[in-house]
């Protein structure tokens, strides 16, 4: 069997690396950054699936300004807050929107996306329950590309 030096790629490491990336792709959508952001805001509470809708286009050309609408499921009692997370941004916590009647549990805004990722919208009810939905967005040119190319 051919041996590789330190500068080469040992076969075992390559195979382990492939296995690791394969495992990662099968994991639920919770990056370390998102996990830390959820922990900071909700402690050990984790969301169930559903109860909130996230409207965003699935393919955007420019990550500097991406229109999003977050809306609670109208068939459920109104949550006290809606949250939006962008897991792969430098700061995953995007915004929190707090609601008191007669306001409706719905808001629209424009966000930055550093690259393609799965956005997560989350509804929080006053009894502590959380509901979440994730939507995958492809970004052609991320918001942070300006840093690299803006000076030319």
């Amino acid at each position, binding site marked *: 069997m051919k041996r590789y030096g330190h500068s080469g790629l040992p076969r075992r490491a390559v195979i382990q690396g492939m296995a690791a990336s394969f495992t990662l792709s099968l994991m639920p959508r919770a990056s370390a950054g998102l996990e830390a952001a959820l922990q900071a805001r909700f402690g050990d509470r984790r969301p169930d699936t559903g109860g909130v809708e996230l409207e965003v286009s699935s393919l955007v050309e420019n990550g500097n300004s*991406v229109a999003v609408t977050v809306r609670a499921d109208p068939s459920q009692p109104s949550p006290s807050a809606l949250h939006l997370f962008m897991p792969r941004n*430098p700061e995953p916590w995007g*915004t929190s929107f*707090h609601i*008191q*009647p*007669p306001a*409706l549990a719905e808001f*629209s805004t424009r966000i930055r996306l550093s690259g393609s990722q799965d956005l997560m919208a989350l509804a929080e009810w006053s009894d502590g329950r959380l509901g979440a939905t994730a939507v995958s967005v492809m970004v052609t040119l991320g918001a942070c590309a300006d*840093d690299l190319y803006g000076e030319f």
Partner: protein
Amino acid sequence: MSLSARVRIPTEARAGEVIEIRTLVSHPMETGFRVDSFGRRVPRKILTRFSCHYDGREIVSMDLRPGIAANPYVAFRFVADVSGAIELRWEGDEGEVLIERSHLEVIRA
């Protein structure tokens, strides 16, 4: 830099009608993550909070983070139940405050 807002607030509504407020503020929302051409980090300068008071009640408040795009746009809806003042308020991380006031007249059919 002076803050300025463009807002769309209805001035009249029928009782029980759902109305929408749309807002846009001129602000760079500098993230604090960018680096200038000398490799120095550009300090963060963002609006951190938006709120709406309707007839003295805070019906909506929003934490704005660096992930909100420059010139932050926010739209939301509420049920017009009484005539009253509407006050929109933005606060920045350098203590700057921008307030827009309006009045909503609710017509009882």
